[in-house]
């Protein structure tokens, strides 16, 4: 505790860069995965290709990807960009699948009524399909957020600043307190991110709060059930 207070500025600075490396991929993955999922829905062949490419990239271990990317991107090995791109790749691979499930779970009747009311395809996608997919989309995002927070620490092995620095430094200095501070800090960040995502989801889905019974109706799709234990 004493060590934590004495080193508070460093803890905060490292938490800051940790958050940047975890949040940016999360945001980027939404921007990339949603259009890809819609493309995959419209074109089955392309969809199969996108999904299998995603699961192949997903299989590449992060430490390997962190060091391969500088070779491809021409970045330095210490750049944040490597971590951000790597985590974005994992996040997109995961999110395309759950977004696809989410879009497929939208009731066809709703879609047809929107068309009948005169919505054009893009308009309908943005105003009807996408909002209705938010619960499933967010359950995917929450899984990714926890995993990102944890994966960012691995960058410390390459010398990229994050709370993972306390692990490598603590080991070299034979100082367990420092490692514990790093672990607790990581858990706190994961919890905070999860809270933010839950709040954001509530803001984006006001209709779910007013619906009196069955508040979990849209979240009861297979995708959500497929991610048990995310709530921690």
């Amino acid at each position, binding site marked *: 505790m004493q060590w934590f207070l004495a080193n508070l500025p460093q803890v905060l600075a490292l938490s800051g860069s940790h958050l940047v490396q975890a949040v940016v991929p999360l945001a980027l993955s939404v921007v990339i995965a949603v259009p890809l999922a819609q493309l995959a829905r419209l074109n089955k062949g392309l969809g199969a290709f996108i999904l299998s490419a995603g*699961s*192949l990239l*997903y*299989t*590449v*271990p*992060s*430490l*390997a*990807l962190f*060091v*391969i990317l*500088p*070779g491809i991107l021409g970045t330095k*090995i210490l750049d944040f960009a490597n971590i951000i791109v790597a985590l974005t790749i*994992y996040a997109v691979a*995961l999110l395309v*699948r759950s977004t696809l499930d989410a879009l497929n779970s939208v009731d066809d009747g709703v879609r047809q009524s929107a068309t009948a009311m005169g919505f054009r395809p893009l308009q309908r996608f943005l105003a009807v399909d996408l909002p209705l997919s938010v619960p499933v989309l967010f359950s995917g995002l929450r*899984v990714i957020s*926890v*995993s990102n*927070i*944890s*994966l960012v*620490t*691995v960058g*410390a*092995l*390459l010398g990229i600043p994050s*709370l*993972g620095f*306390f*692990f*490598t430094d*603590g*080991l070299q200095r*034979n*100082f*367990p307190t420092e*490692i*514990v501070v*790093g*672990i607790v800090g*990581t*858990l706190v960040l*994961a*919890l905070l991110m999860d809270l933010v995502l839950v709040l954001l989801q509530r803001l984006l889905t006001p209709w779910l709060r007013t619906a009196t019974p069955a508040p979990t109706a849209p979240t009861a799709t*297979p*995708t959500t*059930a*497929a*991610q*048990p*234990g*995310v*709530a*921690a």
Partner: protein
Amino acid sequence: MSLPATTYTATGPFAEGWQWLTDPANWQGPMGIPVRITEHLGYSALTLLISVAIAVPIGLYVGHTGRGRVVVVSLAGLLRALPTLGIMTLFALMATSTLSLMPAIWSLVLLAVPPILTGTYAGISAVDPQIVDAARSMGMTGRQVLFRVEVPNGLAVILGGFRSAVLQVVATVAVVAFISLGGLGRFIIDGLAVQDYGQVLGGAVVIACVAIALDGVLALLQRLAVSPGLKEPAGTPEPAARTRIHP
């Protein structure tokens, strides 16, 4: 302590990586690529053996009886949020000998237990209750229901959880090189230390190939092991199957 350095005639990261990979000196001796692959798979196998021994019985019990559901789900969620690198370094410091293997293995077990546990539990509890009732009314005992009905029916999901555990463990074993153990991570850690980018990249490519090959084998096994009577159980949740929490 490390391989004889490859003398690069090529320039550029990928040309160097290729040269490192094709240098015969790197494919032999006690620190060559085959030995490191064996170490890597050995650590992974030991971890998975312990994890299965812990997680499968608990998952079967919880799935079969429905008792302790909440505890299992929240415990698994908590374990997922733990950074394995931190746990590994902490265990390594707390261990008596700095070079022992078990601290790293235990931290990897913490990583592998949640997917196996939730997979087993979800697989068992997703079995159609009517099938279970039918088995009971035929006079099967609890044990018979579990092993002859619930396990075969839930096998696809159970193996999905196992496959995801394998993926995460094989990826994370690359990190144990940092606490002075072997495995394929050695090439990355050693290469970084001496700024030998060819070795770093070559090692990374080997890790990626091993992970992809192993995942492919498991996908095939999963397909073969599941009873043909259960063709594509549409809508069956694949619990946490492909969530990457750790390297």
